[in-house]
């Protein structure tokens, strides 16, 4: 390259000198001279860049070739076809065959035949082998039942692209199993990458069919979290093979939301596998609407408010009872800046609009205006998904009768608080984990007042002091309730000598996130991927070693009986296979804390044949040369030529020498003739 730059500089100097010499000549001579110089410089490029001559050769004369052979479920595998192909192509070339499905099959990868297809993922997986082999050509043999990106630049790593740039890319078709009869498929779903809870989220469902002679309308059932959420009808207009239906969906709960689309029974045509589409969509909340009622203002209420107002994602509606009926304010109402507690507005009209209710030190039975119906409304809101944080403060109130009995994690009843002092103990399986759990367990002891009580049978101990539960949790319907038996942890939020301000903030934050169903705070008894392929081998990990013989349960409404796996005492890992039937499953340990898992079928695999040609066109745009699309036969080899470098320098070509000579001669004639004319003129 440096030589080329030097040559270019010399050439430019020569051109300038030449133009100075031709200063008094006609303009066309100057132009002609410049063009000749430019052409001669062009002839220098093959010399400096060391271009090699290429030649067209039959494919099987290529030195190294790689065949990617599709072994996915949508392809009828034929060993004879592959053997014939290898015999035909590999007779003179060094041939490497890579079988692939979702991954490369052994010995290159760990993939399994009869699964979905991921050609580009397999290419990446085989990258190191391709770099080693430096193939002259890469040939894909597949039914094209995979997603094709619009460009390779952002799909494949750069070093792999360099290898592919040096190779010729071919593709040919294998017959797909999805060719028989009229079929309608769900091709995909377009929606926002993140959903916001309670907001309308636009969803666009794409369907296709392979012929026009079937029904033009199909119903699509949409399930969210395993429950039917909506039904939409897709209409294929006229002879269109594609249809799109748009709708809006609402997610009521936070966290990863399993979404299932399914064509109504009997309307999906001949291929069942492409009638279903499963995906997981993260659901967030833009702002959490919090209602807090404080019975008596105290330091705890102050520091909790400080924490809540610091959070930008919290919309806080805060009410402090500043004056009760018996208080003698010694002033007229005009001199008071107090407003009546809008109980009807909050606990009847708008109770459903809150995500979280904080009930702090509020002895509501002392207030005649607070009707029992309001508590029942709160209970209904919690059952339908609202979180609730109960803080026993300085005023006890009874949690030992309905509706609190079924809603409160602790049945505190006493009129006088107990005083606790001792080390903090954290239940490691709950939402207080990691550094916060360590900090709490190492926190200095301090005496605190607590209204302790018996745990609800389904409640869980989160935090305890002196063997008394101080923080307990309970799931009530779709909602969650946390109960603090003491409200004195504010001292961590303020007292500088303890240096635990961060602990206080973290603890409250985790409480709020758990109440909002944030996925990071969820208890995980069984740890496994959120999505998996039907029948694939998976490893289930328990959050802690099983103390007794336990059972892992797969349950689904479509299963007649749950699938149960037994775990022996002392085990923590279990290798098993995912269920064979695709769909949404609940995976739990002994039926507790179920986790929703998507077991995917061959949804992207069994494509509607109508989009096969579109797939081919996409692949051609990526540089793959289509060979015998109809048959996919190895006979196609006969018709293929390969452009191959023969190793000789380009400048040794006779055509190059001829061009160089002609240009040199033309330049000499022009230049000398011009000088001659010039000399004649000057002598006259």
């Amino acid at each position, binding site marked *: 390259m440096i030589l080329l730059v030097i040559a270019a500089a010399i050439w430019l100097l020569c051109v300038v000198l030449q133009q100075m010499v031709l200063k008094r000549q006609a303009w066309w001579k100057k132009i002609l001279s410049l063009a000749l110089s430019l052409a001669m410089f062009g002839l220098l490029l093959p010399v400096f860049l060391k271009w090699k001559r290429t030649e067209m050769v039959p494919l099987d004369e290529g030195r190294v070739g790689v065949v990617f052979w599709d072994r996915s479920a949508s392809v009828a595998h034929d060993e004879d076809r592959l053997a014939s192909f290898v015999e035909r192509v590999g007779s003179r070339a060094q041939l490497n065959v890579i079988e692939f499905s979702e991954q490369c099959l052994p010995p290159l990868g760990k993939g399994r035949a009869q699964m979905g297809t991921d050609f580009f993922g397999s290419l990446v997986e085989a990258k190191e082998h391709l770099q080693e082999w430096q193939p002259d050509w890469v040939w894909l043999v597949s039914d094209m039942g995979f997603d094709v990106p619009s460009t390779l630049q952002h799909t494949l790593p750069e070093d792999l692209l360099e290898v592919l740039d040096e190779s010729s890319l071919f593709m040919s078709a294998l017959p797909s199993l999805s060719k028989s009869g009229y079929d309608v498929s769900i091709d995909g779903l377009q929606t926002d990458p993140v959903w916001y809870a309670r907001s309308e989220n636009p969803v666009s469902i794409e369907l296709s069919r392979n012929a026009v002679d079937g029904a033009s309308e199909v119903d699509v059932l949409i399930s969210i979290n395993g429950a039917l959420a909506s039904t939409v009808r897709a209409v294929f207009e006229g002879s269109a093979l594609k249809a799109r239906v748009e709708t809006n969906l609402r997610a009521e709960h936070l966290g990863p939301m399993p979404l299932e689309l399914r064509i109504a029974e009997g309307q999906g045509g001949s291929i069942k596998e492409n009638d279903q589409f499963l995906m997981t969509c993260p659901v967030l909340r833009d702002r959490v609407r919090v209602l807090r009622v404080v*019975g*008596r*203002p*105290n*330091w*705890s*209420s*102050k*520091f909790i*408010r*400080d924490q809540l*107002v610091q959070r930008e994602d919290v919309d*806080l*509606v*805060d*009410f*402090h*009872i*500043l*004056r*009760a*009926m*018996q*208080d*003698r*304010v*010694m*002033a007229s109402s*005009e*001199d*008071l*800046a*107090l*407003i009546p507690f*809008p109980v009807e507005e909050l606990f009847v009209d708008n109770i459903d609009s809150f995500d979280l209710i904080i009930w702090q*030190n509020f002895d509501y039975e*002392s*207030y*005649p205006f607070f009707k029992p119906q309001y508590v029942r409304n709160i209970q209904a809101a919690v059952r339908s998904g609202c979180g609730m944080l109960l803080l026993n*403060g*300085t005023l006890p109130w009874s949690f030992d009768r309905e509706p609190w009995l079924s809603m409160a994690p602790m049945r505190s009843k006493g009129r006088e608080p*107990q*005083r*606790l002092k001792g080390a903090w103990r954290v239940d490691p399986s709950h939402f207080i984990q990691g550094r916060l759990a360590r900090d709490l367990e190492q926190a200095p002891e301090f*005496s*605190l*007042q607590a209204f302790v009580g018996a745990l609800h049978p389904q409640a869980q101990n989160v935090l305890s002091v*002196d063997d008394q539960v101080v923080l307990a949790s309970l799931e009530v319907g779709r909602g969650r309730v946390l109960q603090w038996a003491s*409200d*004195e942890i*504010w001292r961590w*939020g*303020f*007292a*500088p*000598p303890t240096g635990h*301000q961060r602990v206080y903030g973290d603890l409250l934050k985790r409480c709020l996130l758990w109440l909002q169903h944030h996925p990071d705070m969820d208890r995980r008894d069984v740890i496994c991927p959120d999505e998996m392929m039907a029948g694939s081998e998976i490893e289930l990990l328990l959050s802690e070693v099983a103390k007794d013989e336990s059972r892992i349960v797969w349950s689904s409404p479509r299963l007649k009986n749950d699938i149960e796996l037994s775990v022996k005492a002392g085990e923590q890992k279990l290798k098993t296979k995912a269920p064979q039937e695709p769909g949404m499953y609940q995976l739990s340990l002994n039926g507790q804390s179920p986790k929703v898992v998507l077991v995917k079928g061959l949804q992207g695999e069994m494509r509607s044949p109508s989009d096969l040609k579109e797939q081919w066109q996409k692949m051609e745009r990526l540089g793959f040369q289509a060979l015998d699309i109809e048959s996919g036969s190895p006979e196609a080899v006969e018709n293929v030529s390969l452009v191959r470098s023969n190793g000789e320098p380009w400048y040794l070509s006779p055509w190059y020498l001829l061009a160089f000579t002609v240009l040199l001669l033309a330049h000499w004639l022009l230049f000398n003739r011009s000088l001659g004319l010039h000399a004649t003129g000057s002598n006259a």
Partner: protein
Amino acid sequence: MPKIEEPRIKKPNRGGEAEHGERKYEKRMTMLDLNRGRFLQSTGGRLALLFVCSVMWMSAFAPAWAAEPSAGESFKGSRFHLAGLWLKAGVPQQIDVLQLLSELNRRTQVDPENDAWQWIKPDEVLKAPPFLWLFVDANTTVDPVVSRDLQRYIANGGTVMVEGVGGISRGAIVAWREAVFPERKIEVLKKDALLTRTFYILEPSFSSSLKTMHQSGRVVWVESSLPLLSGLKRPSSDREMKVRACINIVLYTLTGDYKDDLTHLKYLMRRRKS
């Protein structure tokens, strides 16, 4: 009907001359001393003695959780409590905090601790509860350690109320504060400021005697050139205003700016229009 609770704070003994914190104890001992001879010989006295002995015996076998805090630990819960600091030896004689606590208990839902007030020494600022009532007089000097601790105390979430005692001039308070907090802005309480409407609506003529300093979006420093707490002891024409101002300040420290929440603003606007 809601239960009416008696105020938990005992009326102060106006005739007592003892130092703060020991007043009730010393008064009781004095009465016992005076009547010791006849009291213990009477039936009531013997019953009382038996009762005292029983309580002592039971407390010896009381469960661990009922034990009082260990020596040196001053137990304070979430109920309102505060500390006082006079930056010189002793305590100002005219301070009667029980008046304020009693009024808080009688007029509002604030429920002060039984032992809600404590005097602290200048080197104990960082151990004080979240509300500190600071008294300065003309002889108060600027201690750099106290200044640093006050700044840390405020940064940790504390609120400081400064009151001049002993006839200190307004200029002297300003000079002292500017030495403690150089380059900090302080504002006279405006007519519509939150502190003028946390519980009572304060009259502008009175509220303008208060000055406030803000940090991290909240009032951290309230300064009064008029005697507030020290002016509650004697009946005066503006005593009610002083009580209201004290109650507003206390409620602001406990509830923050919640009166500025949209729900309250909407209601107050509606009430003004009607």
